[in-house]
């Protein structure tokens, strides 16, 4: 029987198993790693159950090996995107120079409804996917200020393509 509420790391792992989600768990770190592939975005979702605070962190690295000279521009892009979207969380790891999406979900003492928890973990991956192309573009030389517009164009194109295929059916 899968858990109906997620109140700890064990519930989290049990839900993944019940859902048939491939994952690697690290009990010591209270973390799981889930390979993800959604459209152009291929990577990993890391979910960490915080031991001391009532938070679960869902972290999706988005672009790696940002050249030193592009760091400021990627920071600018993350800031522009975070300000505009409903669920912010893009950031840059300053030393290893990669961009990621991190969603910190507060979990009340009674836990979180399993279906809603699943939805929020998916939201983290969807955000990573939706802005992957735009952030990669910034790494490759596009202006950070334009990242949001690029992502919006891409979303429109995806929606148009989906509408087109539905029409053909």
């Amino acid at each position, binding site marked *: 029987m899968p858990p109906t509420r997620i109140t700890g790391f064990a519930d989290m792992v049990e839900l993944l198993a019940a859902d048939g989600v491939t994952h690697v768990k690290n009990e010591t770190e209270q973390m799981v790693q889930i390979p993800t592939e959604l459209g152009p975005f291929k990577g990993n979702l890391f979910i960490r159950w*915080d031991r*001391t*605070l*009532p*938070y679960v962190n869902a972290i999706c690295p988005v672009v790696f090996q940002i050249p030193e000279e592009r760091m*400021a521009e990627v*920071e*600018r892009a*993350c*800031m*522009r995107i*975070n*300000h505009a979207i*409903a*669920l*912010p*969380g893009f*950031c*840059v*790891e*300053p030393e290893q120079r990669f961009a990621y999406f*991190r969603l*910190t*979900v*507060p979990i*009340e*003492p*009674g836990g*979180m*409804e399993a279906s*809603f928890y699943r939805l*929020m973990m998916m939201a983290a991956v969807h955000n990573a996917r939706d802005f992957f192309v735009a952030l990669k573009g910034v790494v490759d030389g596009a202006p950070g*200020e334009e990242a949001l517009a690029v992502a919006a164009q891409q979303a429109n194109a995806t929606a148009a393509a989906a509408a087109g295929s539905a029409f053909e059916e």
Partner: protein
Amino acid sequence: MPRPERVAGFADVIALLEADGVPHTRHDAQKIVELATDSGPAKGAMLIRWETEVPYATVIHPIVMNVAPERLAAMTECVTLLNHAILLPGFGVDRDQRFAYFRLVLPIEPAGMQADFFRTMVLACLNNSRDFWLALHGVANGEAPEGALRTALALLGQTKAPSTLWKDN
């Protein structure tokens, strides 16, 4: 109005504030409530917005207004470093209106969030704003981001757990 056990809508936010005797100004049409804040150096207003399209409550505390155009890059760098370092990220910069803020997005499951926990998270927004208030103002006034953050983090000793004291307001 009875104190709600769970916060599942804008009316519950208002009921909770009224039951707890927290002064506020409500804007029903926008589903926004404004709280005056005075916590250490942090003085201003915190907004709680109940989202209608997505299952979130957004808590926002503006921190530095009128950031000079030539300090926006440093402010963006500072906020990036800060979000990467702390347990509950959410600092942001509105690059058009040139102000820095803390914004906490609380995912709210269909049954709502436990009222005491909701209060704790609203206070976490205020506490984060307070704890890094001077650092962000310092950066706006010409301080280097890394130095300002080093000082702020040293003063904290460590990143803090959210307070549970409503009277922090």
